[in-house]
């Protein structure tokens, strides 16, 4: 029964995604494309990280390799491209797979922290080398290409690119999900849990690790390819540490134990980044704070939180659960508001413009800062009491909710690990 409702939910989701270009503005469709690509990249990353337990800090390398492989494929044969546009992401898949297999062969010779350091070194090596290999990576300006018409479509509009991206992301996610129920996919979980024991069961752990790494790199390459098809350009800044960092953050914020967790985290974070990038300069700070909060208090991520909410609702019944849920939402809003207020205030206080203004006028050393259409005086107590109040209110609510849920959480924990792959942890008996 549960799998039926999951299927319905998935079907609804796909339908919704298919309807996006008709429901949203072009700008938002563009954002949706970015969200889909980020979701795929995070899901590919999770194959290695959450499922097989191998923490990679340089995964942008394979995204980037996929991107450059695709852009060169698009430019091949005098610009007509090696493949028709709808099949172009295959170039990303192949290049990601090839480099991923080689890099993975070296990286998986060691485990744990050493493995993480190797992946970092490989990514940094590429990042340092790329500017010098202008033939491959195009120098400062990068390499550009053009989407060629195919199958009667000219791929000129955002909508067509959106559907191309959607098709590939859905197909890739389906394949990645299928992977988790194959023998190799289950073995990868064993790698995470106890790679040592796998040896004594007769498995070639290194070979298995290389396979998993290659799969992860292949799908990362597809994500990179989709990015290039969208932007019609590839630049070596893609090998930057920031892309590797953001995929780590997104994946864990979403939750690694659930198949769609990383996709959820990545799309949400991408969306917020897009939505608030005009409003604030501190978006990355918020993302970092959220990540640290997740790592410290909600290690199962947002997906885990949703799962917890579902369980609590079943346990308490809707009548008793609704006020708890409202309190939680209210607490989150208050805490977020308080934090954002302080950060934005500080950001403006320490900005160059403000400091110039402050030092220019000796009589009024702390001129007011405009926030939310209101002028706040940094010297006034009110300015600081508002966020303090918001934070305190949020904190109190949170503590109250916690106390309410505490005794019950302990007893409901064992029941929490029932299987149902998409919505819950893919660790149960098939």
């Amino acid at each position, binding site marked *: 029964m549960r799998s039926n409702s999951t299927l319905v939910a998935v079907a609804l989701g796909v339908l919704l995604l298919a309807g996006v270009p008709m429901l949203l503005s072009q700008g938002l469709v563009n954002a949706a494309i970015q969200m889909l690509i980020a979701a795929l990249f995070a899901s590919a990353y999770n194959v290695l990280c959450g499922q097989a337990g191998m923490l990679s800090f340089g995964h942008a390398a394979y995204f980037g390799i996929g991107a450059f492989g695709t852009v060169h494929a698009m430019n091949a044969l005098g610009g007509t491209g090696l493949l028709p546009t709808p099949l172009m992401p295959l170039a990303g898949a192949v290049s990601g797979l090839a480099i991923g297999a080689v890099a993975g062969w070296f990286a998986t010779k060691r485990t744990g922290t050493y493995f993480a*350091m190797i992946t970092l070194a490989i990514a940094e090596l590429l990042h340092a080398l790329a500017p010098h290999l202008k033939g491959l990576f195009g120098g400062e300006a990068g390499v550009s290409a053009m989407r060629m018409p195919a199958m009667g479509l000219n791929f000129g509009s955002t909508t067509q690119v959106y559907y191309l991206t959607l098709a590939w992301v859905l197909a890739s996610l389906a394949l990645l999900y299928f992977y988790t129920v194959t023998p190799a996919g289950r073995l990868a979980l064993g790698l995470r849990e106890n790679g040592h024991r796998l040896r004594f069961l007769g498995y070639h752990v290194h070979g298995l690790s290389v396979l998993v790494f290659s799969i992860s790199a292949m799908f990362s390459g597809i994500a990179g390819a989709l990015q290039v098809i969208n932007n019609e350009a590839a630049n070596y800044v893609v090998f930057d540490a920031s892309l590797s960092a953001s995929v780590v953050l997104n994946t864990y914020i979403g939750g690694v134990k659930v198949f769609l967790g990383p996709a959820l985290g990545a799309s949400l974070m991408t969306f917020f980044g897009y939505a608030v990038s005009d409003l604030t300069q501190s978006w990355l700070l918020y993302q970092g704070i959220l990540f640290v909060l997740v790592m410290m208090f909600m290690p199962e991520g947002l997906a885990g939180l949703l799962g917890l909410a579902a369980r609590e609702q079943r346990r308490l019944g809707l009548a008793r659960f609704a006020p708890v849920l409202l309190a939680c939402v209210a607490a989150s809003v208050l805490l977020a508001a308080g934090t954002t207020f302080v950060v934005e205030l500080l950001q403006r206080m320490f900005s160059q413009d403000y400091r110039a203004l402050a030092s220019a006028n000796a009589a009024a050393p702390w001129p007011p800062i405009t926030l939310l259409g209101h002028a706040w005086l940094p010297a006034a107590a009110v300015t600081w009491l508002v966020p303090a109040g918001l934070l305190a209110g949020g904190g109190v609510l949170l503590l109250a909710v916690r106390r309410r849920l505490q005794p019950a959480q302990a007893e409901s924990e064992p029941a929490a690990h029932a299987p149902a792959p998409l919505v819950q942890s893919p660790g149960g008996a098939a």
Partner: protein
Amino acid sequence: MDTLLVSLLNGIIYGLVLFMVSAGLTLIFGMMGVLNFAHASFYMLGAYFAFALQGVLGFWGALALSPLLVGLVGAVVERFFLRRVHRYGHAHELLLTFGLSFIIAELVKLFFGNFPVNYRIPASLDFAAFRLGSSDYPAYRLLMGGVAVAMFVLIYLLLTRTRVGIVVRSAIYRPRMAEALGHNVPLVFMGVFGVGAALAGLAGAVAGAFYTTNPNMALELGVMVFVVVVVGGLGSLEGAMLASLLIGLITSLAVAVDATLADALALVGARAWAEEVGGLLTLKVSSLAATLPFALMLLILLVRPSGLLGEKA
């Protein structure tokens, strides 16, 4: 010849700066098994705190106070963040420090701006130590080297000759046993973490005035520091010194070399072919200088993963 000497000296000094930061990192890893991604952030904080305090306390005052502040930050990080996630395992701790390094970098950008700040050597120290051929060798570089060497000697003596050192070493090696013997191991952890951070902060305060002080310095140096501790051996102080000097020298000397792989292949008469192939083969070693440490790190990780002087993994 003079350029070679200058390159050598620069390499050694840069290596010593690297050592100042990696010493704390390798000790912390040896003790807690966690590679602290935020360690280079402490370096950055040291530079920025010193910059901020310079106006109030003068150069030397800022230099003295800044590491203490950074040490405090380090202790807070260990006590309130790392300790909480200790039960989730090393990978989790690593990720947490990763997130913290991210936050620290963003906070620095928030308070000080997304561009380099004007943290300079005071005029009183801006003189030449001696002449090497046609150029003056800045005395401040020697000061940096001196601080690093003093630090190495101090830590080494502290760890091997004092009672505190013995307790710390036992906590590093056998934390549960040390605790069973009555030592306050959590306090030791916090202390070592704080001291490690303070050392990185001192390095930042000293070196930030010479090299640039900008929000990216944590990332730039941080990656190098990881290379150093992996090459030298995680947990080995002597290894960190050896690896730092090695990497400093390689980077510094490579920058002066204008030869390419094609030139080397010329020895076997394959120059024309190499130049036609292009790409990597025609890249000057000087351009590749930045990539050599990573190549070395990869080599070590594959051939001798415990590092040059580390214990067998």
